[in-house]
């Protein structure tokens, strides 16, 4: 099993000499490398070479210790990357915050987004993201759970062995392909049949995002359902409950955390989905009128499509506002992710780890 000492940097004196030497040397050089890359990118090569030298020497003298140190640094890189992302997004969005203040997230008026006039309000885009996500989850939530239930509890074995991998493969279809289909089929159809005033609609984009999130939700929820032990289900069936009663009363509640994690994952996908909305929406940075009008010409922009469609023409405060949109997205998704981890931890606690 694993020992505890590797993870605890506080107890340096417990470490052996090799670890301490290599650890100190590589830590210093790698920090210098990162610092150099941040401040003087051209000079990065020197500390990097130093780091490589320390590692090479360490590998020769104390292989295990070096491997451990290098792997610990690799592990730390996730934290560093997440930290850098957070830092850079926040830092880049400072200018627009300074200009718009909290109005960036609250300002509602006749003009809400006008780079020429220096008006940047993310309200329409947040609303657009909200609406498309809701529509997407209305499509993907019920269908996804139905698909997972069908695959895991109802389909005969042979069908399950085909459907399960097929769904996983379908989950890999790139979003731009969905966007393409949405653009040429869905937009076209809705334009023709529903006489939309403009090519594109939040509704169409939401439906396409929902379809896109569907295989992921099915696959993750199915894993959760399949993980419910057969003994538990047998216990219910042996009491004379029907399979459906067993599913609703035992299987689904036991798999609750996994199924809800699947849904949250789907919401995260829908929120962050970029390409499909970028090609499908008409990019109008206004609020729909009325607010729930998901077919009309107004409000056809989401946080993601805003960034993807305007980064090329943006500079200064405008670009900074795009970063602010990124921050909003990032924080929402991180909150969801941490929330779902908490739900899962709570469930594990409740189930006593046993069953």
């Amino acid at each position: 099993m694993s020992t505890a000492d590797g993870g605890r940097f506080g107890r340096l004196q417990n470490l052996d000499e090799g670890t301490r030497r290599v650890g100190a040397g590589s830590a210093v050089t790698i920090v210098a490398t990162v610092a150099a890359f941040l401040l003087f990118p051209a000079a990065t090569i020197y500390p990097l070479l130093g780091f490589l030298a320390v590692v090479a020497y360490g590998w020769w003298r104390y292989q295990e210790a070096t491997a451990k140190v290098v792997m610990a640094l690799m592990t730390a890189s996730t934290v560093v990357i997440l930290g850098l992302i957070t830092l850079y997004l926040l830092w880049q969005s400072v200018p627009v915050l300074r200009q718009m203040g909290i109005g960036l997230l609250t300002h509602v008026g006749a003009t809400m987004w006008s780079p020429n006039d220096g008006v940047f309000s993310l309200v329409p885009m947040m609303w657009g993201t909200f609406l498309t996500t809701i529509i997407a989850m209305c499509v993907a939530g019920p269908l996804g759970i139905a698909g997972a239930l069908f695959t895991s509890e109802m389909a005969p074995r042979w069908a399950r062995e085909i459907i399960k991998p097929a769904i996983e493969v379908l989950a890999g279809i790139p979003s731009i392909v969905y966007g393409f289909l949405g653009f040429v089929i869905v937009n076209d159809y809705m334009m023709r049949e529903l006489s939309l005033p403009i090519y594109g609609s939040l509704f169409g984009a939401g439906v396409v995002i929902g379809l896109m999130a569907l295989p992921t939700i099915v696959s993750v929820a199915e894993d959760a359902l399949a993980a419910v032990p057969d003994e538990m289900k047998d216990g219910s069936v042996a009491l004379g409950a029907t399979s459906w009663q067993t599913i609703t009363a035992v299987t689904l509640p036991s798999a609750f955390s996994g199924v809800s994690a699947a849904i949250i994952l789907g919401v995260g996908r829908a929120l962050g989905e970029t390409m499909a909305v970028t090609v499908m929406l008409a990019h109008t940075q206004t609020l729909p009128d009325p607010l729930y009008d998901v077919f009309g010409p107004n409000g056809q922009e989401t946080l993601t499509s805003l960034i993807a469609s305007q980064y090329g023409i943006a500079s200064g405060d405008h670009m900074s506002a795009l970063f602010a949109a990124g921050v909003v997205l990032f924080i929402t998704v991180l909150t969801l992710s941490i929330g779902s981890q908490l739900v899962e931890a709570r469930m594990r606690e409740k189930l006593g780890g046993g069953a």
Partner: protein
Amino acid sequence: MSDSSTTETAEDEQPTTTTTTAGETVEEVQDEWIEYDFDGPAKFSATDLNVWYGDDHALHDITIDIPENSVTALIGPSGCGKSTFLRCLNRMNDRIKAARVEGSVELDGEEIYQEGVDLVELRKRVGQVFQSPNPFPKSIRDNIAYGPRKHGDINTGLLARLLGGDDREREEELVERCLRGAALWEEVSDRLDDNALGLSGGQQQRLCIARALAVDPEVILMDEPASALDPIATSKIEDLVEDLAEEYTVVIVTHNMQQAARISDQTAVFLTGGHLVEYGDTDQIFENPQSQRVEDYITGKFG
């Protein structure tokens, strides 16, 4: 999966098998076969019961009558098909995709492997307790009330209250009666709303018995119910089984000879390959087995 089969009356004849790979064994088994007569009605009578898992022939021509309101123990070495036989009695084998059952099992004279059998009804009448305790991750109360609620015998909740039929008091009574029946009431009466997974293994197993009692079955099948438990919990379960035999028909699989000898009225010995070798009064089986192989097994010479 239901292979309805010939429902001929169980004749007082020895089972005849011709086609099997282990021909010798079968010959021997038939020679050793002992007829067992008992007074009173048979709860179950199985005739020429065969089970396959894919190509694996797990039970060979089992013919056996199980008397009402008594404890019948099934013993035999590991892998000889005891659990498989037990699962035939409430058709839990239907849930195993690879399993194929042929032959006849009658419950109170009614064939359970005929077309149109209501499995829900069958399993209400034939309850089962599993080898390892498998309570639902719900409160103790919800575990006990699970069956009756699902069968619509007890209605609780908002909708029931609106419709004017909240059976909360009946549920309360039922929970207490079943927990007392399973000798668990004293231990848990003050924490009925706690999660059942917080109970000890022995308590969980008694909860599972209580849960099965709540459906008011006629038969309770138990598959090594005490195998995961310590001696004290085991003896509690044993006492319980003896009590249950007054009202219920109990069929119990066990690996523990002493246990079988202590609690059962009659014993069926299965031997490797899925053959029923000897069946009779427990005392007779343990004191004076007819077959050399059964004697060897019981005295621990093989198995």
